[in-house]
């Protein structure tokens, strides 16, 4: 879908905007730009962060997919990669960082600890059993830690989700995952 838009824009054939199909086409354009420049937030909580750094480095080169600039502030970030064990002490800080990000924002839970508590699920008195208890998670990437390929696949899933965004559906009903409440 977006590839044809790429071609249309670049080849300079008849512009889709002339057909007065405004909203869908603007949606497409915005989603295309958005998914082509996903800026993740710079923070790593544990060993998964090492794999995240490897994903950003030259061998796996996350920049190829437009997701290179790890931002040092939540105000400029679109994607929060929660990479590592979230302790109960850290949980309010993660939640606050998420709240500070502008919409539309996405969360990728990287690794077993953020997905479910991982190896700490039984005896980890201090570990949050899954980051989806405090922030809505869009994509789960299991693994301990996941390989860079897995993280890239997670990024693709986020990008697919971004392509389904609608401009006037501000609430993203049905799109925004729920926070797990027990």
């Amino acid at each position: 879908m977006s590839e044809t838009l790429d071609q249309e824009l670049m080849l300079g054939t008849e512009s889709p905007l002339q057909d007065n199909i405004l909203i869908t086409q603007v949606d497409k354009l915005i989603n295309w730009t958005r998914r082509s420049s996903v800026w993740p937030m710079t923070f790593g909580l544990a060993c998964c962060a090492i794999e995240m750094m490897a994903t950003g480095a030259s061998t796996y080169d996350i920049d190829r997919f437009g997701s290179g600039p790890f931002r040092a502030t939540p105000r400029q970030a679109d994607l929060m990669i929660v990479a590592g064990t979230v302790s109960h002490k850290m949980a309010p800080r993660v939640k606050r960082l998420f709240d500070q990000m502008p919409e539309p924002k996405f969360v990728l839970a990287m690794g077993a600890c953020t997905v479910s508590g991982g190896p700490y699920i039984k005896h980890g008195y201090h570990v949050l059993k899954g980051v989806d208890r405090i922030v809505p998670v869009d994509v789960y990437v299991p693994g301990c830690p996941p390989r860079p390929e897995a993280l890239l696949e997670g990024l693709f899933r986020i990008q697919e989700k971004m392509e389904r965004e609608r401009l006037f559906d501000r609430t993203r009903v049905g799109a925004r995952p729920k926070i797990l409440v027990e």
Partner: protein
Amino acid sequence: MNRASIVADVRKAFGERITEVDEAALEPFIRCEPATWPELARFLKDRCGLDMLVCLSGIDRGKGVGLEAVYNVERCDAQRAGIAVKIRVPYEDAVIPSVETVWRTADWHEREAWDLLGIRFAGHHNLVRILCAEDWEGHPLRKDYKSPDRYHGIKNNVV
């Protein structure tokens, strides 16, 4: 100065107040009562030259025995002569005099032992939790510790 001479010096100076000496152990140690500890620490540092506190460990020895603190002290020279000091306290009165003024390293280590095992270090200038959240209840590494079902409304025990 090697370990044998350190032990000899300590024995000479403290006599009966050293309750146990084991030089054959994998990690040779001496044992004393909490009340002796500030004086012994000063002696080890000033007279024996053991100027580095390598490690301070807290141990829960279980019911009937109590809590234990193990101090590994060493000389900062080529020989690295060193000794461990073990101090045992009962659960109901788990107080050991602080040695943070003797070895500055002890500051954070004592806070950690307080946080995780609940050993109080009398005379510490800032004995507050260092790892767990400020409002955490209980001391997690004690054998009878039960982790909370909920923390700030978030369910904790799921298995």
